[in-house]
């Protein structure tokens, strides 16, 4: 079997992640095989046979091989999971299981109910500092079906959206109607952070929360200092707290 240019790499080692290493290793093996089969020099092969003989079917087989080993891909766009449920890990908290679902971050700070009836359930990076804390009703927004429902029927007043998408597109048509946002991902400079700032909606990004269920009354400490770019670069913790209020 012919050797590839990278086979004599003095410094290169394996990729960090198993999926990438598995895919890239399989592709390199495929290229060696196709190069040998072509009988051509590399220079004649690279933009000729390498393009025509290495096909989508070859790449599909590489993807399938990992599934056959029992691997299931972690999804990030819900459409990926919905179109290929057999290839991805299960989606939770996007359907009928919503009533019992909650984000569970292992580093979420928690504490028992205090004298004011506040139960600490997490923290987040405050996008903008406001004069008063915010109290509202937690409602998970994790799928386009939920967004469409709110788009057609309106977002209930006082909704603090609990989201794990730091982007600005999933909630685009209803974002302005939220009273507040708790986002489990991103930073204050994520698209969602940028947009909530523009709309003047209190928002925590990179939130680490635990045990907050659909319909819980929550309080956001958005009087906390807004997290700065400098704090991110230097790894300085600068968070506001999230409480669940006693019913």
């Amino acid at each position: 079997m012919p050797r590839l240019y990278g086979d004599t790499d003095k410094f290169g080692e394996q990729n960090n992640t198993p999926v990438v290493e598995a895919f890239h290793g399989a592709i390199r093996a495929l290229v060696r095989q196709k190069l040998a089969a072509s009988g051509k020099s590399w220079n004649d092969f690279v933009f000729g046979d390498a393009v025509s003989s290495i096909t989508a079917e070859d790449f599909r087989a590489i993807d399938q091989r990992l599934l056959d080993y029992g691997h299931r891909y972690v999804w990030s766009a819900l459409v990926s999971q919905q179109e290929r449920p057999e290839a991805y890990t299960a989606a939770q908290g996007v359907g009928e299981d919503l009533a019992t679902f909650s984000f569970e971050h292992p580093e979420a700070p928690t504490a028992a109910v205090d004298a004011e009836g506040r139960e600490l359930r997490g923290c987040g990076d405050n996008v903008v500092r406001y004069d008063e804390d915010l109290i509202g009703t937690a409602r998970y927004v994790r799928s386009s079906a939920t967004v469409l429902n709110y788009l057609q029927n309106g977002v209930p007043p006082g909704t603090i959206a609990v989201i794990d998408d730091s982007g600005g597109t999933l909630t685009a048509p209803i974002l302005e109607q939220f009273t507040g946002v708790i986002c489990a991902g991103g930073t204050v400079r994520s698209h969602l952070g940028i947009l909530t700032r523009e709309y003047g909606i209190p928002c925590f990004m990179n939130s680490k929360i635990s045990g907050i269920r659909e319909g819980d009354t929550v309080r956001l400490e958005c009087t906390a200092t807004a997290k700065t770019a400098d704090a991110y670069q230097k790894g300085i913790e600068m968070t506001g707290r999230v409480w669940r209020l006693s019913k």
Partner: protein
Amino acid sequence: MNLTYAQLLETNNLIQQNTDETYWLCLTRTVQESKLFPVSPYMILSYFMCFYRYPALLRKIEQHMRAEDIGDRARNMGIKIQNPSMGWCLPSFYLLGREYLITMGLIRPQDAVEDVVYVMDFWKRYELAWHRNDGHLTNRDFGHRAQVLPERRLQIFHADMYDCVEGDPLHTAAQAFMAATSQYGFLVSCESRIALHNQGPYKLDDEREMIVRDFMDLAEGDYPWLDGVAADMPYNNLTVPMAVKGVHFNIIDDWGSFESQPEFKSEHVVGVGLYTSDTLSEGYIPVGMGSREELTRTFNELAEKAKDATNKLWKRIAGWSRDQMMDAGAITYFSIVKDLAHVAGCYEMEDWMLIDQRAERFRPLLNDEYSNMALWEILGPLSNPCQRTNEYQLCQHANIPARMYSLIPYTILKDGDYTATVGDLQPGITYLPPKEDRYRTTRGVLPLADYNRHARDFTPTVCDDNNRWLCESWLKYHHDTPAAEALYRAEQQHSRVLKDKGAGLRRADVEHLRGK
């Protein structure tokens, strides 16, 4: 092409500059993610498209207009060949595609060398022209600043903007417009921020700075997914010069985003204006700038149109398949430099709105997990084998022995063991509905053939042979000449405050005039 040592030295330097800046941008900016769009998969697909198509498309464009001439045109309007498109995306999307193929063993660093040299040279010439007034290659080169506009345009933005304070109707309307249009821009661009651009800062006085914010590709135009839903958007590009007080913009980067000290908030905005422009306009055309009330009303109307288009577009996208989302995202990224072809008058839908078949092959690999991890490895730890260098090395910003983009080996100058090019354009495919032949321009909604013809026939006055060399350095010493006077008057033709005021004004004069 006879490759020379000097060419390779320069090309490798340009590659390295992109390596250094890309790492910094990724380190200090945020990840881009979405539960709606498969973002990482479409990004990687787009990088392959860029590698296979940019060389042929850029050569095609230069058959009509040179890169540096397009840069001159772009410097005088707010279209989508500023940042991040040209400052970062053109070279880095192309180099990311190349790097993925290298690490997969599908090409070597010395493959498609003439393409690499050409693409980087195109980028350099364009950037130097676009940055002509500040004399830099990139914002990075300028310590993260972009002072692109000439004095004559800055004077008009300064003179004609309306003062505002937080809570007044104009301030409220401008803020609502920018929020709604930013959100619409993210959706149009499939979660990327490439519909937005900021340049500056420009100093208005000791307390105030001005940044110029562009919102681009808002109307029915190149993107098939805007057909119908954006029919009511009356402008494809909108520019908002914005005066701020009490903050200094210390970073305007090559992604067109900014940072300030102290942190910028809407309360800092003390003046706004509104303009549109495109390939067919004589620079910037005022929008709703006849009076404060008209501008307030215009901002409010445009915000409502942006919200309406957002709702319609969101419903369309929510019904898409993953392949359609992949196509739209990849096309958005790949076509980020498409306005080069519009300026040159050679834009073709098939060139820019289809997935090249050589890139399309890779789609089955691009599941969410692989794509997220592959993107992280190439941009974060730089852990692909081809990115690792000898252990003595400390790369800029990360202090690890790695280089994001592989350099071209110099041995090819002696042994000739390299390949020149990926070849000509090849067919493409798409899962999206076909593009309708409607393009919103400043001369109305045109079919593409007319749009291209008008672009080829048109030279803005400030770019014609009489004016294009009247640079800021020359104007400093010749502001009292008829040529300078004519140039400033041409720029001032639509100005409410400065019409026919000519070339002799200084900043304090402008401030005095706007107070009258």
